[in-house]
């Protein structure tokens, strides 16, 4: 497991033309790991193409400040967003 709860991470901004589950609006954004999900999970990026989706991967619930995700965000400063991101989409954030 590469990342721990509380760790600062950044979502890769790479383009991925095929099926993947990283929403565009978090790509390139900085977040904090909220939790590392227990277990390992099949890879949708391969399983979507007649493959069994192994080797399985780690998934992390990552939180993002809404004010960092959306210019002009209309809400409270402390509002945040959480989403599940696969390990291979995350990098350590300096």
């Amino acid at each position, binding site marked *: 497991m590469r990342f721990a709860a509380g760790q600062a991470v950044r979502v890769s901004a790479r383009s991925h033309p095929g099926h993947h589950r990283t929403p565009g*609006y978090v790509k390139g954004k900085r977040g904090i790991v909220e939790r590392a999900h*227990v277990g390992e999970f099949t890879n949708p990026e391969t399983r979507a193409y007649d493959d069994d989706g192994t080797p399985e991967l780690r998934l992390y619930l990552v939180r993002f400040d809404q004010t960092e995700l959306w210019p002009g965000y209309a809400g409270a400063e402390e*509002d945040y967003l959480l989403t599940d991101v696969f390990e291979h989409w995350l990098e350590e954030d300096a």
Partner: protein
Amino acid sequence: MSHGDDHDHSHEPITADAEAPVAARVQALADLLVEKGVVSREDIRRGIDWLVSRSPSDGARLVARAWVDDAFKERLLEDARSAALELDLDPGPAPVVVALENTADVHHLVVCTLCSCYPRALLGPPPDWYKSLPYRSRAVSDPRGVLREFGVELGEDTELRVVDSTADMRYLVVPRRPDGTEHLDEDGLAQLVTRDSMIGVAQPGAA
């Protein structure tokens, strides 16, 4: 649909709405696949029976129990899938179910921006608006605006946490127990827990 009601969906045989081309096409697809031995009528029947058996009352039971039993609540927040099994509820096929607790200071809202991921086993099929493009777009970028549309105004000092369900986890909101409900038993409390309060677009009903 009155969610939680038991409708008798007897369909022997399954009939398509003659007016909708897509209905005929789906029926034809089902017929073809059954003929090819790819799936069976029984498989289809079983799937339909399961889906129509699902309603928010299962989710409501989880919430009501959590409201009256602190130890259960902690187990629910730790692992909602196991907590559901504890109450003999079907948590569904998702390997992980996460319960998100609303408090005086924190409110959660759930969305699936990429498709329609939703804890169907515990809440029944999702409403159309949950699967709609405007909800999928604005629940993440303008969640307070969305809540306002649903009649919920959060204070500036309430933290709003939006969860975008993108993977195999399914998320369920545990709304706050309403004031003035001390006299209610667990069944009475469960009546207050609406589907929308477990998505996060509404507060639970008043006693």
